[in-house]
């Protein structure tokens, strides 16, 4: 049971959502945008989060979009993870979303909710970071379309009153060779000790990680090392571990030393898996 009251609003348009949020904020009703709600409900239940009103965006058509506009795949922020895995239009995202929580939870957790999560993993960010996705954000009188790097820096950084409407991914990335591995401490369904995702495009491997640091990331130095053909796979992995050692988590899920061990093996696996894969055919 949630131990406090709040008001529930379900707007039908983007403008209605933005206006409602602003009005509720003016009235001091501390609004939050609401997607799947799994994180908000579980945190509210234990008293670690409170709010005076929720603005549920699931009835906004633009937030439910799923399909192509010419050569761009559009994924609405209110799609559930199972909407994405069942459609299987973006195989790397299918793999990634299919390993978040469990299947039933994937029927409730939304794509945008995972990206905006306060929990550090935000694994759906990895495929988006790797494919130079563009994010459409609704705010005060504005519908802005920006590169993911502009609004996702470790986490989704939106201005108060703004919300994510959709992500757009170029078709050329969807068929690119990819890699995905999620390593957990013990059970298959758990937060990641390390999730690694990679794509090979134009003959170059890109890689992004979650669980390794306190935020998901893609790092240009790591990718330079990953693609350094003067080094063998093991040497590249060693240098990547060394380059990232300052940010690697050391917690109850795994010591920093163990994470380094897992990272090294995972990097070698990425390189082995992708060595024979040709460049993405754009």
């Amino acid at each position, binding site marked *: 049971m*949630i131990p406090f*009251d709040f008001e*529930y*609003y379900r707007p039908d348009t983007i403008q209605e959502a933005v206006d409602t949020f602003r009005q509720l904020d003016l009235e001091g009703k501390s609004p939050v945008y609401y997607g799947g*709600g799994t994180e908000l*409900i579980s945190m509210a239940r234990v008293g670690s989060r409170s709010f005076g009103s929720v603005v549920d965006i699931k009835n906004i058509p633009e937030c439910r979009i799923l399909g192509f506009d010419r050569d761009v795949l559009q994924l609405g922020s209110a799609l559930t993870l199972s909407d994405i895995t069942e459609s299987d239009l973006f195989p790397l995202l299918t793999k990634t979303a299919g390993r978040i929580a469990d*299947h039933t*939870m994937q029927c409730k957790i939304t794509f945008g909710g995972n990206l905006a999560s306060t929990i550090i993993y935000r694994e759906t960010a990895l495929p988006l970071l790797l494919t130079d996705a563009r994010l459409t954000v609704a705010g005060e009188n504005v519908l802005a379309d920006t590169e993911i790097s502009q609004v996702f820096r470790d986490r989704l950084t939106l201005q108060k009153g703004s919300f994510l409407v959709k992500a757009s991914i170029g078709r050329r990335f969807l068929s690119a060779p990819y890699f995905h591995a999620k390593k957990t401490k013990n059970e298959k369904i758990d937060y990641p000790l390390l999730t690694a995702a990679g794509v090979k495009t134009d003959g170059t491997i890109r890689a992004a990680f979650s669980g390794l640091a306190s935020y998901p990331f893609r790092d240009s130095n790591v990718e330079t090392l990953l693609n350094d053909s003067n080094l063998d796979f093991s040497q590249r992995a060693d240098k990547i571990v060394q380059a990232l050692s300052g940010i690697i988590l050391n917690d109850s899920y795994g010591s920093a030393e163990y994470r380094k061990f897992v990272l090294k093996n995972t990097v070698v696996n990425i390189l082995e898996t992708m060595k024979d894969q040709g460049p993405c055919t754009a």
Partner: protein
Amino acid sequence: MYCLKGKSAIQLNINDEIHDVVIRPSDVLLHTLREQLGLTGAKPGCENGDCGACTVLVDGWPVKSCLMLTAEAIGKKIMTVEGLKSAPIQRAFIEKFAFQCGYCTSGFLMVCHALAAIHQNPPDAVIDEWLQSNICRCTSYEEIGTAIRAVLSGEM
């Protein structure tokens, strides 16, 4: 725009019947089902989305009712275990001895029922993936797997 402020009377479609209930916007579906409607098939377990004992179907898909606001269910078709009414998966659970204490059973039944409706011939990996959403402390997993496979194969 739909909005709900304070205690309000709403209608829910549950097991193909329209029910009138009075809810707070902060009520979760699990408690509305159990306390207002007497539909106690959905069980409170962890109430944190981990155990699956409270699973119901929302428009045919399994959802943990402890993590769904009742307000979100307005306009949706909700099915609880009380709505199964002698479905093949129920007979399979009995014939394959797929439960012991029974506390998790209604949640497993709902997941299995949805799986059989959505995927006619799923590979083992898909069956395992769906069943991993629920926990059985009596560890009847082998028999539960046998029961859903009996339904999927047409044995039931």
